């Protein structure tokens, strides 16, 4: 029973994405279809037009296998190595410097705002 419900919810999530993809292609919208599906689903949940249990277990199942879905694009970097060649050190520097800056700024701003909030 649970399995059937999860399966149906997976189909529903797939249909939502397929519909968004159709709309994006049809209207020539400059945004990824998955993002549109995310915003739509969030809106439906927040406006209480859709109860959480209607998609919850299907969504959890998809999110559990998510890391596996990153494998093809990750392995695909083999085709893009010519882009990185000669720039590996520079890219690493940019990534780490911007990461440290972003985390410090986000953390310090958040801490300052939390402290100012009334308890």
């Amino acid at each position, binding site marked *: 029973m649970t399995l059937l419900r999860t399966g149906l919810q997976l189909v529903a999530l*797939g249909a939502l*994405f397929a519909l968004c993809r159709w709309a994006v292609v049809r209207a020539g919208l*400059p*945004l*990824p279809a*998955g*993002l549109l*599906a*995310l915003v739509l*689903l*969030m809106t439906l*949940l927040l406006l209480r037009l859709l109860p*959480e249990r209607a*998609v*919850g277990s299907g*969504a959890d199942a*998809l*999110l559990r*296998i*998510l*890391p*596996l*879905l*990153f*494998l*093809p*694009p*990750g*392995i*695909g*970097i*083999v*085709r*893009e190595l010519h*882009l990185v060649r000669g*720039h590996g050190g*520079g*890219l*690493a*520097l*940019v*990534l780490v*410097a*911007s*990461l440290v*800056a*972003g*985390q*410090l*700024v*986000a*953390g*310090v*701003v*958040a*801490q300052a*705002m*939390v*402290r100012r*909030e009334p308890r």
Partner: protein
Amino acid sequence: MRAALEIAGATAFSAALYWVCSRVQRALRASLLHPLLLAVLAGGILFALLPPAWLDAYLRGTAPMVWLLGPATAALALPFFRRRAVLVAHPRAAFLAVAAGCASTVLVVWGVGEAIRLPRPLLLAASLKSVTLPVALGLAELVRTQPGVTTVCVFTSGLVGSAIGPGLLDWARVRSPVARGLALGTLSHAIGTARALEEDPLAGAAGVVALTLSALLMAAGAIALSVLGT
């Protein structure tokens, strides 16, 4: 027939590789050796050694897995919805911290990157590093950068951020669990959020909210960039 074989083969290979890598990670107990990192390294080396036609066949066969990233992106609405109480309790902290974190990280990418003359596709991929991977891959297509480089940048931000982030936040005296979770989620998405959750349940919830807001904000930026056609 051939397409079906490619799909079955590529899916089975991916699942087997990922499974073996998660066993290896569990055996070694090293958190930096994320199974996905090991699997990308092992798979990448394997396909670099094989004739290019094998990689082409593998990538064709993984088309259904790549399609699933779409519904999986939509599924991100659920963890956010479940933890929306954090956003309701700390709306200003959440919005400002995420906006400031995203803006400063993108500024440093372009400032440092332009100074050392990094090519544009790498700068774009590095700018997307703080976006949760399913959304980042969609945005990479939009701003015309490569999915593989984007995956590696996003993954680096997650792994390095969750390794050094807590120490960095200690040093900056960021002690509130909400603030720590927001910082880790904004820059290091799901991996950073998992690290925040180890510290405190509230930090984990703040991380989920931050990774969602960060993805939406960066998406707005990427869409603006692609519409302006630069």
